[in-house]
């Protein structure tokens, strides 16, 4: 790869891997995010989102693979003030007011935004004079968001930014994020919320068990599972037999009920009834992002548990 190509790319992950002892947290991730993209890192608990983010930010060294930010190492990009972030864990330091804390962080960055402006945008203005130790959960989260925003970085990395925020908080948050995105900044955020990923990201990277299981626009991911889900009551049926039916891409069991993910709903329904006339309580639905999410995540799990 030529140097200009690297410099043009915002964020490049190559075969990134990291284990904590026996736990393989991240198992070979390849990902390229262009400058200006807003990308959601979506996945269940323990999928490896935070571990990936730690490696992107240079907080944890990868066991294998590489991270390139704007053509250089994470350490370089961080030292140049091109990266801002909101980590999943971490408290605010004491003995300062919210305004003082944000001003202290702003002083570390070469192109920081005016503190008052950021306090207003994040809604932290209302409690700006309060000590950091006397905040509600959502207020601390807004403060942390203000700290990330004031840095005015080229890449903003946010690990579950809306956790602990109320409806208004979420609204404020996404409104200011859209503004940041409009300025052409690159945004990567981790989340569990499908609606958030669907509404605010240009692109969704779905992670499960340390791998990327899907990567694309929300609509692409939905179409990956064809669009239809069939639910039926069918006791004692073999899941593998269901998966081999025409038009069926996945099967899950919950008690006596089975859920089939289908690439072709009509074909699947015909072959299901043809093969299993005993199937009852049939329900056919268009698959949403949630079904896609569940299917892609469990598909990967099946792979893992296979001998």
């Amino acid at each position, binding site marked *: 790869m030529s140097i200009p190509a690297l410099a043009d790319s915002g964020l490049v992950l190559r075969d990134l891997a990291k284990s904590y002892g026996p736990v393989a947290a991240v198992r070979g991730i390849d990902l390229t995010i262009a400058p200006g993209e807003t990308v959601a890192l979506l996945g269940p608990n323990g999928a490896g989102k935070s571990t990936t983010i730690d490696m992107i930010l240079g*907080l944890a060294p990868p066991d294998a693979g590489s991270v390139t930010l704007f053509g250089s190492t994470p350490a370089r990009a961080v030292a140049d003030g091109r990266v801002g972030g909101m*980590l999943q864990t971490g408290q605010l330091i004491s003995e300062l007011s919210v305004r003082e804390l944000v001003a*202290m962080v702003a002083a*570390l960055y070469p192109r920081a935004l005016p503190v008052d402006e950021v306090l207003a945008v994040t809604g932290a203005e209302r409690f700006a004079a309060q000590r950091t130790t006397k905040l509600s959960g959502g207020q601390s989260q807004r403060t942390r968001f203000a700290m990330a925003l004031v840095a005015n970085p080229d890449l903003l990395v946010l690990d579950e930014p809306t956790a602990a925020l109320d409806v208004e908080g979420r609204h404020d948050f996404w409104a200011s994020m859209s503004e940041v995105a409009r300025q052409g900044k690159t945004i990567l955020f981790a989340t569990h919320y499908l609606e958030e990923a669907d509404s605010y990201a240009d692109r969704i990277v779905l992670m499960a068990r340390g791998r990327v299981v899907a990567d694309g626009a929300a609509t692409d991911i939905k179409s990956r599972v064809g669009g239809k889900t069939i639910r039926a009551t069918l006791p004692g049926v073999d899941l593998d037999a269901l998966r081999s039916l025409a038009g069926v891409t996945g099967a899950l069991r919950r008690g006596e009920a089975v859920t089939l993910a289908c690439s072709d709903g009509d074909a699947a329904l015909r072959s299901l009834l043809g093969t299993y006339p005993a199937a009852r309580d049939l329900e056919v639905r268009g698959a949403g992002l949630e079904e896609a999410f569940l299917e892609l995540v469990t598909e990967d799990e099946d792979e893992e548990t296979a001998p």
Partner: protein
Amino acid sequence: MSLTYLHYEVLRTFRSRALLFSLGFPLVLFLVVASTNRHATLEGVSFPLYYMAGMASWGAMLGIISAGSRISVERQQGWTRQLRLTPLSPRAYLLAKVVCGYLTALLTMVVLFVAGTVLGVRLGVREWAVMVGLALVGLVPFGLFGVMVGHLLKPDSLGPAVGGLSALFALFGGAWGPIATHGTLLDLVRDIPSYWLVQSGTVAYGGGGWPLRGWVVVGIWSLAAARLAFVAYRRDTARVV
């Protein structure tokens, strides 16, 4: 390093409750003990002068060690991780901690000197200057101990560790009164850096300074403490590049 960052670090230090104790205990002890022995002499100098130097040394030691030990709390809170996302270098972070430690120590000394003056301690300008200058040098190993402790210990053991460490150094250094006036024990305590810290007051009386041994002892302890602080820092930050 950004001066604004330093400004807020200093602000945090002076708002911290720890300052109340590192300043309060030596001051109260000095006022109580020295006022009842105003006209006594010790080691050839007036008791209030000796005790003022002793309490100022102990308080400064306590202040500078606890300033460094705040690193431990900030690591536990995840604040140092957050700082690693900023352009602030680890060196600047440590430097700010040391500056805050020195300011705490200076404030403690000034308060004790004012209290000493109230109780009749009279020194010339040169003598004050020598005393403060030597104390600042004598505090170097303790500032480094603070950084070491901050990287080595969890916050829940900081209190006893910092209190105990400075108490031991104060006791053997003679901050609460000379532990030995002659013989092998005196010879031993003269190898302890806090002995020379306490001596900064008495040697300044009359315009003197540390003998060569004082410089050598403080120098060697500083080098050793720097090495230990560096090892602790490396060990602690090894998992985070």
